[in-house]
Structure formats: structure tokens, C-alpha cells
């Protein structure tokens, strides 16, 4: 592992980052910028309001609900109730890949549906138009399900999307219509939307089909949205190892899968932030334990597979898992061997999402690269510090209005897959059953952890640390690259991927190699500028010596 002795003094950095803010803002931000110590993990202020006027990476509740969680299910007609923009912006930009069973099978991923709310709808109410839209969608497509997403004005004017949905569902009989009160202003970030989406999916979809699928080792994949085909790679590995995927929440998924999810015997959670609610609720109602896994990183993939095999406790499964790992890892190793001499010792920063900023550190580590600073865009304290802090988290005003479903064991379907003792035994073996250790445990001492990093802070961090690569999203990409530092998008993968599993890891290594060693960065200065400056390029200067 990379020594971090050359990192700048993190407390000076923190001071630098906040010195330009108005006092109140500085005080607030100070709590979200934390110097890591993996031994005694400090508290990170997270899931709090962004200060108005701060240029933030964050989006809104609607984005988390419709964009993240519901968007990837291909056979739901997702109608956005509101002005046109909200629907337009969520149209295909998240690149959730999906592969229908046949060329005729339903797939609405490529479509964008909206009620295109007009001023008169805002003034006189939009329910009538909404019901008209639902009717038209039904008449045109006869889908299995129609979901309605509320945007900001909807809540304010009092349109009842749930009543409208129910009315239409009852009218159609053969089409599941349900709504989400995911107005953009709810909560403080996309995170509120995840929770609302979890609730809705759990209430309206999970448990509607009790048919039990074939397969000895049945699980659901939670929090994998198939960006860049990530889910395809995980599906490939599951298939090779003999694990049966019942439902995916929600990459490459269908209504049918999700309705049947409660028949699985394990929930594995990838993106803890967006989907942990679902794991909890399914455990309570159906008795299915959940376990945190990670398929980002070749080693992590191997580890996660072993954990799953351990969970099922089947020797044949364990043997198959080992066989697959033995077959896949040499290919991964070969790529690492080729590339690592060119990446070793380089540094990365990750500021993205609610899970990726954590797990992509594994991939960098496999390339010999150190993550010097990281943070989430919309996570909570548990994602940083681990779930053990959950009881201590204070719910603030912005989050307390988000419904917590009261879930109880299903009188008929509750069936604990493992006894308490079995679960305890598995935990002892290192399985993160119903648990998550968080990001900070894995990061080096004195690295920086910054929640909801602002534009200003990220520019300063780059100026100070001069990382070799910065991971964030599209809004940050060209800002950072204008500074001569390549930015890897970890929402969209820069339209590459998959990055999960064994093949994904190889893709990622190659992409990072290309980016950090790209000759274009040497072209930035014109020769007459070099002559003026006396140095070849300003970029070659480096604060962190390797």
C-alpha cells in the first residue's frame, strides 16, 4: 500500500477550504470536512441541507426516485407528472442498460412520458390531465405497470397522485398503477427519493407473485442499476457459479422479477445508500437476511462471491465459486501486470454518489493508486462511518417528513431463512449480514473525507493535492479537466463500462491507464508559452511527490 507521508497537512487543507465562506457557512462546512482515521472513525456531518448559493453536485428527490431507482425497470411506463423539464432531463441520460428477452418484449427505457403540465393545470389542478395521460398510455401500450412521479408543483397544488393512480388501477384491472410523492424539494438530495422509491416499490410491487423460481441459491441484487452493463457482468458471474438471480433492484429488471423478489433467500446489497431500506423491510416482512457485498474490484468480487457461498453454506457452490475465481483472476492479473507499472503511486480523488466513492477505491488500489480524498454526494453518516452509528443519527427537519413504512412480518409469507444463531455465526466469519462498515474504515489515515463537496472545495483540493485523477460526475468533468486533471465520471462511466466483476475490473484498469497517461495533457501549453514559462508544462509540476 502507498505510503501517505507526502500528503499535505489535512487540517491546513480543511482550513483553506472553508476560509472563503461566510462565517455561518464555514462553520457548517467544517463539520462535513473530516480528517480520516480508520481506527477511531470521526463523525461526518452528512445528509444535511446544502447551503443556498453553494455550487453543489447534488440533485433532487425526484432524481433519486425516478431517475435512480425506478428508471431502470424496463416494462414500467414511468409518467412524470409536472412541467416537461423533469421528464426530459431523466430521459436516457442515466444509461441504465436493459436487455429485453425478445425483440418484441416490452421496453420503455427509450421513452419519456410526461403530463407536460401547463399554467392552467397549476392554477386549476392537474389531476384530470394526469388521469387522461394514464388512460392514453394504457390505450397505446397496455403496459403491466404505470408509475407516476410527482414534481415540485404537484405537491404544492395538492394533486393527489395516489388517488388518481388507484382510480385508474381499479379501472384497468390489468395494469398496476401507482404513484410517488417525490417532489424535488423533499429531503436534501436524491437520497430522499431513494427512500420514497423503496417504499413505493415495496408497497406496490414486491410480494405480488408468490411463484417460486427454480434454483438452489436464490438471491436478489439490490442497488445495482446496470450503468454501463454492470449488472450484465454480475449476471454472467452468477450464472457461471450457479447462483440464481430472482430480482434485480433495479438494473435490467422487470415488473415480474420485482413482484417475485420475496421468494429469494438472500438480498445482497451493492449500493447501501439507495436501497438499504428495501433490505430491512424485506427482512422484517419476509425473513430474508441482507448482506452487504461489493462487485466493484476484482478482489472484492471474489470476496463477495465467497461470502455468498458461505451464506448458503453449500460445498458444491463454494467449489464452483473457487473454480470461477481461479479461472477469472489470471486474466485480471495479466492486465494489472501490464498496466500497474504505469499507474503505481498515482493518486485519486472520488466525490460521487452514495456508494461508488467507496467501492471504486478498491479498483484504484488494485492499480497501486491511493485515494487521497473522497466523499459522497448524498449519503448519510452510516455510509461513511458504518451502520453502527445509525441509532445516534438525528433526523432533521428536512428528512423527517419522509415516510418510514411500518413493516411487520407477513402472517403468511414470513419465513426466516436463517436462524439468529446461524446469522451470528456467519457474521463471525466476516459476512456483513445486515451490516455495513462504511467508507472511512477503508481509507488511509489523514486522508480527507468531504461530504457534499462544493465546486469551490473541489477546485482547491485539486490545486492543493494535484491528483492524477478525479472521479465525479458530468457537471464536474470539464471543470476538472480544464485544470489538466482527467476526470472519470462514476455516474455514467464516461459511457464506458461495465466496471463490475472480473471483466469490468479489466475495463476500468484500461480506462484509467488511458486517462492518467494520455499524451493530450502534454499538449496543453503551446511552445511559445513553454518558452515564456521556462518549464515544459505547468502540469508536470506536482505537489505530491511520488
Amino acid at each position, binding site marked *: 500500500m502507498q505510503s501517505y507521508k507526502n500528503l499535505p497537512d489535512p487540517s491546513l487543507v480543511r482550513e483553506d477550504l472553508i476560509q*472563503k465562506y461566510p462565517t455561518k457557512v464555514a462553520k457548517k462546512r467544517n463539520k462535513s470536512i473530516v480528517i480520516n482515521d480508520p481506527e477511531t472513525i470521526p463523525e461526518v456531518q452528512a445528509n444535511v441541507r446544502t447551503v*443556498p448559493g453553494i455550487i453543489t453536485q447534488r440533485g433532487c428527490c425526484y432524481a433519486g426516485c425516478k431517475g435512480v431507482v425506478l428508471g431502470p425497470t424496463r416494462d414500467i411506463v414511468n409518467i412524470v407528472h409536472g412541467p416537461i*423539464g423533469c421528464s426530459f432531463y431523466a430521459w436516457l441520460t442515466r444509461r441504465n442498460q436493459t436487455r429485453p428477452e425478445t425483440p418484441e418484449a416490452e421496453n420503455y427505457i*427509450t421513452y419519456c412520458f410526461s403530463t407536460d403540465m401547463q399554467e392552467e393545470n*397549476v392554477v386549476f389542478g392537474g389531476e384530470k390531465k394526469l388521469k387522461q395521460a394514464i388512460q392514453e398510455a394504457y390505450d397505446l401500450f397496455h403496459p403491466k405497470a404505470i408509475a407516476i412521479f410527482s414534481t415540485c408543483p404537484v405537491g404544492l397544488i395538492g394533486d393527489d397522485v395516489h388517488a388518481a393512480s388507484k382510480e385508474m388501477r381499479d379501472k384497468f384491472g390489468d395494469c398496476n398503477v401507482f404513484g410517488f410523492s417525490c417532489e424535488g424539494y*423533499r429531503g436534501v438530495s436524491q437520497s430522499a427519493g431513494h427512500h420514497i422509491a423503496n417504499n413505493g416499490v415495496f408497497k406496490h410491487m414486491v410480494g405480488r407473485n408468490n411463484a417460486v423460481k427454480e434454483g438452489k441459491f436464490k438471491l436478489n441484487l439490490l442497488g445495482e442499476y446496470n450503468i454501463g452493463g454492470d449488472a450484465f457482468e454480475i449476471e454472467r458471474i452468477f450464472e457461471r457459479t450457479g447462483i440464481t438471480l430472482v430480482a434485480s433492484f433495479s438494473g435490467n429488471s422487470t415488473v415480474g422479477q420485482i413482484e417475485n423478489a420475496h421468494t429469494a433467500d438472500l438480498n445482497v446489497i451493492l449500493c447501501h445508500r439507495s436501497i438499504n431500506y428495501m433490505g430491512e423491510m424485506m427482512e422484517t416482512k419476509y425473513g430474508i437476511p441482507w448482506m452487504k457485498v461489493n462487485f466493484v474490484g476484482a478482489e472484492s468480487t471474489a470476496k463477495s462471491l465467497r461470502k455468498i457461498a458461505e451464506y448458503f453454506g453449500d460445498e458444491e457452490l463454494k467449489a464452483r465459486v473457487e473454480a470461477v475465481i481461479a479461472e477469472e483472476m489470471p486474466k485480471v492479473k495479466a492486465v494489472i501486470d501490464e498496466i500497474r507499472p504505469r499507474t503505481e503511486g498515482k493518486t485519486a480523488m472520488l466525490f460521487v454518489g452514495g456508494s461508488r466513492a467507496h467501492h471504486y477505491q478498491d479498483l484504484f488500489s488494485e492499480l497501486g493508486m491511493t485515494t487521497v480524498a473522497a466523499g459522497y454526494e448524498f449519503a448519510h453518516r452510516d455510509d461513511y462511518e458504518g451502520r453502527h452509528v445509525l441509532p445516534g443519527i438525528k433526523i432533521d427537519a428536512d428528512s423527517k417528513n419522509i415516510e418510514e413504512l411500518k413493516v411487520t412480518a407477513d402472517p403468511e409469507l414470513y419465513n426466516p431463512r436463517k436462524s439468529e444463531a446461524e446469522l451470528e455465526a456467519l457474521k463471525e466469519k466476516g459476512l456483513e449480514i445486515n451490516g455495513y462498515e462504511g467508507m472511512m474504515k477503508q481509507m488511509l489515515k489523514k486522508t480527507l473525507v468531504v461530504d457534499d463537496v462544493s465546486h469551490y472545495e473541489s477546485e482547491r483540493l485539486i490545486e492543493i493535492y494535484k491528483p492524477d485523477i478525479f472521479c465525479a460526475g458530468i457537471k464536474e468533468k470539464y471543470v476538472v479537466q480544464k485544470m489538466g486533471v482527467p476526470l472519470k465520471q462514476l455516474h455514467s462511466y464516461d459511457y464506458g463500462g461495465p466496471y463490475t466483476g472480473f471483466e469490468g475490473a479489466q475495463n476500468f484498469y484500461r480506462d484509467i491507464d488511458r486517462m492518467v497517461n494520455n499524451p493530450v495533457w502534454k499538449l496543453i501549453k503551446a511552445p511559445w508559452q513553454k518558452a515564456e514559462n521556462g518549464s515544459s508544462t505547468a502540469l508536470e509540476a506536482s505537489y505530491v511527490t511520488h
Partner: protein
Amino acid sequence: MLLRHTTKEVKEREGLTINPAKTCQPIGAMYAALGIHGCLPHSHGSQGCCSYHRSTLTRHYKEPVMAATSSFTEGASVFGGQANLLAAIDTIFSVYNPDIIAVHSTCLSETIGDDLQQITKKAKDDGKIPEGKHIIYASTPSFVGSHVTGYANMVAGMADQFAVSTDEKKNQINIIAGWMEPSDMREIKRLSTELGVKIVLFPDTSNVLDAPQTGKHEFYPKGGTTVEELKSTGDSIRSLALGCISAEPAAIALEKKCKVPFETLDMPIGISATDRFIMALSQAAGVTVPDDITADRGRLVDIIADMEQYLFGKKVALFGDPDQLIPLTEFLLDLNMKPVHIVSGTPGQRFEKRMKEILQRAPGANFKNGLGADMFLLHQWIKNEPVDLLIGNTYGKYIARDEDIPFIRYGFPILDRIGHSYFPSVGYTGGMRLVEKILGALMDRQDRDALEEKFELVM
């Protein structure tokens, strides 16, 4: 098929928009505001709006797009957003130090009734606007009009809130840019320089959204119309508004406030509209058109004459924004092509009227704009009457692939190719670029589909 559920049969829809040919106002306001030097756009609403608009503009330009947000939460939505905006102003001037904050509203703040004029006034009164700094605003409710309306409103806001009429007329012409690319604005300036006319162009996103790679991120790039220039528009001889939908409101505002007479022109796309622009500008300024411009025009005509056989009669489907569609349709007709299906999600009677005038030369063409004029309908029309070419923004690629139609990316947003921000499509040079692209698309298709014995070397 990527759009496998699109039916050939067209059914009237009243409630459901599918695959829109527009987006909402605030992004237009944000784009326009980036065309003022030293300006930070500010979205007064929920965080998501700002994030979506910045993302889309960033994808279109592959450039930094800086903007702030009032970060509404539920509290602000209930109690009003004034506190958020005032806090934002503080934060922004402290941290990002712009010369100007350009605030636009959203459906959220409009629905709760926030009054931007009142709040910005309060900010000024409360001394939150530092000496020499400015705040302007535009009301851009997402449930009215489209992104184009938002652009128009913000540009009108610039005119209205900056222009000052002194006693001294300035020997300059205001050119109010309709929604066009930085490359187009650069070309408008080049043409004006060649004509020898002093102009104030606003907004002007050149050198902002086409900034060079320098190794340094310039938060406020060197481009953009300056405050001084904007102020001086009130003393100009005349305004030329390039676009009846996106530019005219600013011209009207200037006339109202400062009595600057104006003329509204189609955006100078293609030969006829550029002719009118050059004529209007040269007449307004009392200059003669230099030979170099006439020669550029002649080169465009020359290409058309040389290649007319490949253009003749080709059927085209288009979608996009009014001020582009109007001259583009006219240009296609000048090229002896056949625009047959046209949609725009943007409403507007001026737009409809102008299109109807132009489409007199294209009997039978389908045209629809405003509510219900979406890409689903366009696609259905295409299924009923196939076309040789599709022109529109990136979302057209799904139709193009399903129906195997040559496709030219034009308009907003273009998310999957570069070029639009660097090479103009206005003016005669822009016309040459458009013709090159059209010919390229049509001839590539001819080459692809030719029988071996009909595969041509010379074309």
C-alpha cells in the same frame, strides 16, 4: 427496435406527451445568462433543476457550466424562498465573486409565488449586493412555453434591467442573439466586423462555452457581453432581434424602456435569411456590403448549384426550436429539398404564422408546434411518410436508427457529437457547413445502398 412501441397509427393525445421536442424554461435562462461576462446564473428552486440544467448544458458543450441554486427544501417550499435566495446571494458573492448574479425562477418558486423583483430589490436594499456588482432576474415558470421562452425572458431581463438611455446616441447597432451557438455568435461578430458595423451583441456565449484548454479553469471565461455594453444598448441606433421567439422580447423591452427602434429578423441560417440579415444590418448602419461577404455568399450558391442534383426533392423531417426551424425550413426549400414533417414543442403564434408563410412553398407538409407536438408524433408521421433525412437534436438518433434514416444533429441538445459549438451554422459560411453536412449524409447513404455496378467514383 429502440422505439418498438411507437405505432404507425396516430391517435389524438390530450394528456400524455411522449418524447418531447422541448424542455422547460430555466435552462434557457441559464444559457442566456452565461452570455454575460462575469455572470453566475442562479436557479431559484429545488437543487435538481440546477443540476439537470448544468448537466445538459455541460453535455452539449463539454465545457464547465457554473450555476448556483437556492437549494429549496420543504420548508422553503412552504414558507417561500426569500430566505434561501438572500442566503444564496451572500454565499455567492463571498465564494464565487461574480460581477452579476442572474436569477431565474422555476416551477417551484413560481407556484409558491416568490416575487423575484421584490426579493432582488430587498437584497439591494439590504446591501447584499456589493458595490459595482449586479443582480438581475427573469421569471421563467417551467409550466409556460419552453426552454426557448426561458432564454427569451432572460435576454429581455438583461435588456430591461441593464439598458440605460442617456442623451447621447451611440453609433452602434444592438444585435440580440436568438438562441444560437457560441460559434454562431462569433460568426455574427465576424460578419459585423467585416461589414464595418459597430454592434453590441447580447447575449454572447462565445469564449465562454467554447473556452480553450489552458490548464486553468477560468470560472468566468473571457467572453460574454459586458455590463458596460449592456448598459449602452439603450443608446444604440437600432436593435436587430434575430428570432421572433427567442430574441424579440428583448428588443421590445429596449424599445419600451429606451425607445430604441427595432426590427425582428429570422435567425441568419441559410441563404435567404442571411441575405435579409446582411441587408438589414448594412442598411441600419448605412454601410455597403464588402466584396468578401458577397464572395462568401457566392461560394455558398456555387456549392448549391454544383450539387443540386443530390439535394433535389429529398424529403426531410425536422424537429427543434422555432427560431432555427423557420430559416432552416426556408433554406431547405432554397436547396430544392422537401421539408415534410416538422415539430417543435415550443408554442408561439408568431412561429406558426411564419412557418405557414414559408410552408406555402411546401404544400402538404406536416407541421405542429406547442402542446402535443412531440417526437412520438414526428416518428409516427415518418412511419406514414418516410423521409430521406432527419434533422434534429441528439434524441433523433433513436428514430434515425429504427427507421434507417440519415441523420444530422442540429439544435439543442447535441449530446453525442462535437462541432456545433466550434463551427457556425449561421451566415453564408454556416450555410456551407450545413450543405456539406446534408450532402455528406445523403451521399454516404447513396454510397452505402448503391448496387456494386452503380457505385460511383465521381459525384
